[in-house]
């Protein structure tokens, strides 16, 4: 593998990791506040659909992003209502949200556009174009550093940079602000937060809303950045990969960056080399596809470091005793 190929693979790693990173951080906020969310997939799917639909109709990419966040927030609202207000089972609510998104996107897509669930292909201002960072063209001929800067770091869409910026921002919010402290406390010991006179449900709803916004960005990037329009089931399990990355990252923002980059890299390598010849035997492409899930199971089993979820995760908070 030469240097240019490596740069190409890393470049596509960054692009493929972006939706995972948004979704992983989304899950992080929700689960750190004690709300399990297996509905990341559904929220991303709904956001991808509505953002593509809005961008196709209005021709504006940012209106598309707004619509995507709106769709994702709606589903977050359902999840919050079910798991916070009515103290329902968070896992079951997540499953329901995934199916709701999977069904409604095709149903509405077929009714609105009549293209078998797809949205019209997006062009021009309706999708994200690459942003060329300053001096990228000037630096490009410089050996080694040039390609890294011009191809790997520069030339992505706005949302890619936003996703990367979300990592320090999330770390700062979670570990350096009062809200973040309360959010983490709600996920570990809600009764203590309640005693301090802070509304547990309020913090949890805020966390679920942040999760909705981030999932909306993930979906919007899928439809407006990575692809040009919405296709049926286009998330293709990315919500679950993000969930896996979240466990891999042990519910921490910087680790989340590492985990999603790793899973993005696996996908990029799998796309580039369907079958990897190791000399002795050939690794089939299915192996690469299954690898993130296998790694997550291994991590969960505690063979490589233990992943400990937030202690009050999955339990609705009951105030009166």
């Amino acid at each position, binding site marked *: 593998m030469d240097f240019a190929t490596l740069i190409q693979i890393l470049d596509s790693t960054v692009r493929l990791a972006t939706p995972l990173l948004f979704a992983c951080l989304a899950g992080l906020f929700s689960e750190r506040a004690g709300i399990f969310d297996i509905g990341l997939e559904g929220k991303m799917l709904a956001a991808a659909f509505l953002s593509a639909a809005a961008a196709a109709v209005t021709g504006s990419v940012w209106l598309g992003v707004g619509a995507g966040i709106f769709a994702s927030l709606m589903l977050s609202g359902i999840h919050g209502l079910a798991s916070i207000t009515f103290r329902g089972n968070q896992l079951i609510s997540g*499953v329901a949200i995934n199916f709701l998104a999977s069904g409604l996107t095709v149903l509405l897509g077929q009714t609105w556009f009549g293209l078998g669930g797809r949205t019209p292909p997006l062009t021009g201002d309706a999708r994200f174009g690459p942003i060329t960072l300053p001096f990228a063209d000037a630096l490009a001929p410089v050996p080694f550093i040039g390609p890294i800067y011009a191809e790997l770091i520069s030339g992505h869409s706005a949302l890619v940079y936003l996703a990367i910026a979300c990592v320090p921002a999330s770390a700062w919010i979670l570990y350096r602000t009062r809200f973040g402290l309360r959010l983490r406390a709600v996920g570990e010991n809600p009764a203590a937060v309640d005693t301090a006179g802070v509304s547990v449900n309020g913090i949890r709803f805020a966390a679920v809303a942040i999760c909705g916004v981030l999932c909306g960005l993930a979906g919007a990037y899928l439809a407006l950045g990575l692809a040009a329009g919405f296709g049926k089931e286009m998330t293709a399990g990315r919500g679950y990969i993000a969930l896996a990355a979240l466990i891999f990252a042990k519910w921490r923002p910087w680790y989340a960056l590492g985990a999603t980059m790793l899973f993005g890299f696996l996908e990029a390598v799998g796309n580039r080399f369907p079958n990897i010849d190791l000399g002795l035997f050939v690794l089939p492409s*299915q192996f690469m596809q299954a690898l993130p899930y296998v790694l997550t*199971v291994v991590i969960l089993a505690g063979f490589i470091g233990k992943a400990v979820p937030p202690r009050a995760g999955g339990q609705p908070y009951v105030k009166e005793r």
Partner: protein
Amino acid sequence: MTAMPKWADAVLVPLISLLIAFVISGLVIFAIGEDPIAAMKLMVSGALGSTYGWGYTLYYATNFIFTGLAVSIAFQAGLFNIGGEGQASIGGLGVALCCLYIPWPHWSLALMGAVVAAAVFGAAWAAIPAYLQAKRGSHIVITTIMFNFIASAVLVYVLVNVLRPTGSMDSSSARFDEVMHLPSLHDVLALVGIPFNNRNPANISLVIALVACVGVWILMWRTRLGYQLRAFGKSEKASVYAGINPVRITMYAMLLSGGLAGMMAVNTVMGEGQRLILNSVEGAGFIGIAVALMGRSHPVGVLLAAILFGFLYQGGAELALWTKIPRELIVVIQALVILFTGALDDMVRRPVERVFVMLQKGKT
């Protein structure tokens, strides 16, 4: 708040939830510019108006009985097995291997062999998440989700690289021998003189599904193991104090659950397909969740809920055929049923409870 009689809890609350889910589905149909009443009529006539429609309804229901029972057993033991999809597809692999490589002399023997193979393969696929949950405390929901994806990768690999006959472009196994052909429901009912359409995939697996319902009922409510499973599900601490081994119970619950999910493959792979194809499960593993929630994790409830979903499936196919409503409407209805009978249960239950409390106060 114990004013609510048992029947209200078991029947009234799920029915109200179902009604809400249906009303919202009707609104969805209305919103996309179709007539909900006409759609309902078409679904009923398409799924239940002929023995042809009934055949498809019962064929789908057979799948949902198996996956519904699978989710139910795990629910009873306090575990959420979301991996029915993966367990059923690996079960299908078991059925295919059993039918392709063993020269069965007669379909009845092959059927028994296939049932065992499907159950063993399904159970084996559930065994690893179960072991990790029991021994290492890894969350079973996450591991079973991961195992669904791993199962689909395994199945693609095996179908494309091992089971695909040389020269075939289709990623599917070879056809099973003619001997392996299961009697259809038409043949079974003809024995007792009931005329039934013969151009539908309903087959003798339905009988196995019904036997499984009875078996699960006996197991859960008439045996020591069933009692232990239910006790464990109600309160882990109390059951451990009573001397129930949590590792053993988790393993048993998940093995039974995985085995039942795997047995679904007898219906799809052996009964209908006569060969193993990609994605023969078609989401039935997930519908099992809706069926179990709707049926309150009881075999009778599961049977009724499975027939309801079989009806929705066949009715939905008819809708897609004759109107502009896409098949995905069923996925929306399924989501709403899961949402209202599962996650938003409390929203329905609280007002119903209040009504019963008021009624009681009125009496005294």
